[in-house]
């Protein structure tokens, strides 16, 4: 239960949603709602001034191939994406997040834009060079602005969005869904836990690309690391890890342990992809 009083608004179009956000400064968009309900109950999040439910907007529920792209609506649940399995690399990564029942609520957009450090859904999307479609309120009463951007251009530790900007969908090149991939995930306890480290690798011809979560307070992908791995893949693992910066130490594991885990994961992945 959320103790605060606030209005609930159910938008039927993307334009209605951003208009509602503009009317209630500090409003939050609601899709799966898992983070909102749990953080608001613990008063761990800023006060909610309004919730704008986006689940009934048709374009955030798209799950189909369009020309050369797989389009995944931001309000698709992780379970929907896993069951559709149009992008097996993404499906395998999503199956590691939370538990099966929670994945019936967690949404793709919610995971990518969430407040938690892990946001593992973004890893395959970054590696597949996905784009995101969004809509933002217009300035000074102007109509809302729609835009499409490469995910890698607007992701630096977290998704960089304008105030009130709503992610509508992700588009993944179909060719990228067919590339060889490898996914490894280690937790401190059992399968339903946050990751010590999650590593995702993809291979496109001779190029190796890596994205990781858990080792830092945010997901990481780096062109510099990819270049090091591609150049001399097996020998360069330690060098590539060194380029990832300091790993974190917390109750789940030390930085040294995470470093060793990631090294093993990358070496195993390189063997799988060779």
């Amino acid at each position, binding site marked *: *239960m*959320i*103790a*605060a*009083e*606030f*209005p*609930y*608004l*159910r*938008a*039927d179009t993307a334009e*209605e949603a951003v208009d*509602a956000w503009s009317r209630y400064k500090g409003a939050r968009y*609601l899709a*799966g*709602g*898992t983070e909102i*309900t*749990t953080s*608001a*109950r613990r008063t761990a999040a800023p006060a909610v001034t309004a*919730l704008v*439910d986006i*689940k009934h907007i048709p374009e955030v529920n798209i799950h189909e191939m369009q020309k050369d792209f797989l389009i995944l609506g931001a309000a698709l649940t992780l*379970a929907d994406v896993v069951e559709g399995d149009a992008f097996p690399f993404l499906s395998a990564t999503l*199956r590691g997040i*939370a*538990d*099966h*029942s*929670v994945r*019936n*609520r967690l949404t793709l957009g919610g995971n990518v834009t969430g407040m938690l450090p892990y946001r593992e859904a973004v890893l395959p999307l970054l590696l597949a060079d996905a784009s995101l479609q969004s809509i933002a309120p217009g300035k000074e009463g102007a109509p809302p602005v729609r835009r499409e951007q490469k995910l890698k251009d607007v992701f630096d530790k977290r998704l960089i969005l304008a105030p009130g900007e709503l992610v509508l969908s992700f588009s993944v090149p179909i060719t990228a869904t067919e590339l060889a991939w490898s996914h490894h995930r280690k937790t401190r306890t*059992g*399968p*339903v836990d946050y990751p010590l480290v999650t590593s995702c690798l993809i291979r496109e011809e001779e190029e190796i690309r890596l994205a990781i979560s858990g080792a830092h307070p945010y997901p990481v992908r780096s062109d510099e690391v990819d270049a090091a791995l591609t150049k001399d893949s097996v020998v360069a693992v330690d060098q590539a890890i060194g380029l990832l910066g300091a790993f974190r130490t917390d109750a789940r594991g030390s930085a040294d342990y995470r470093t060793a885990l990631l090294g093993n994961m990358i070496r195993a992945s390189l063997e799988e992809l060779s």
Partner: protein
Amino acid sequence: MKEISGTTELCLCVNGEERRASVRPGDTLMRVLREKLGLTGTKCGCENGDCGACTVLFDGKPTKSCMVLAVECDGIEITTIEGLATHPVQQAFTEENGFQCGFCTPGMILNAVALVTAHPETDEEADREWMQSNLCRCTGYEGIRNALATARILLNPQD
């Protein structure tokens, strides 16, 4: 655009019946089921989406009702443990002693009903993946696992 502020009377479809309740936008489905509709079979455990004691079926899909706001449930078929009456999965849990203190049992059973419906044949990987959503502090997992096997036999006697 639909807008709800303050306390509003909401119509929910629960166990095949239309039920009315006065709710605030911040009220979770779990609280409304228990405190407004008297359906106390939905248990309040962690209220954090971890334990699964509050699991209900949401258009047939197991969902933790502590993470859903009641105002979001317009047009959704909600099934609680009270709505099952005498389901073969319940019989299987009884036969296999798939419970100890019983607190987690409603959530376990609803998740198991959805599981054996989606996977009528034995599927150990699916069983493990689905049932990880529910915790049993009594650690009665062996009986619960046996109950899944018995439920499938009860539901598909020709197998």
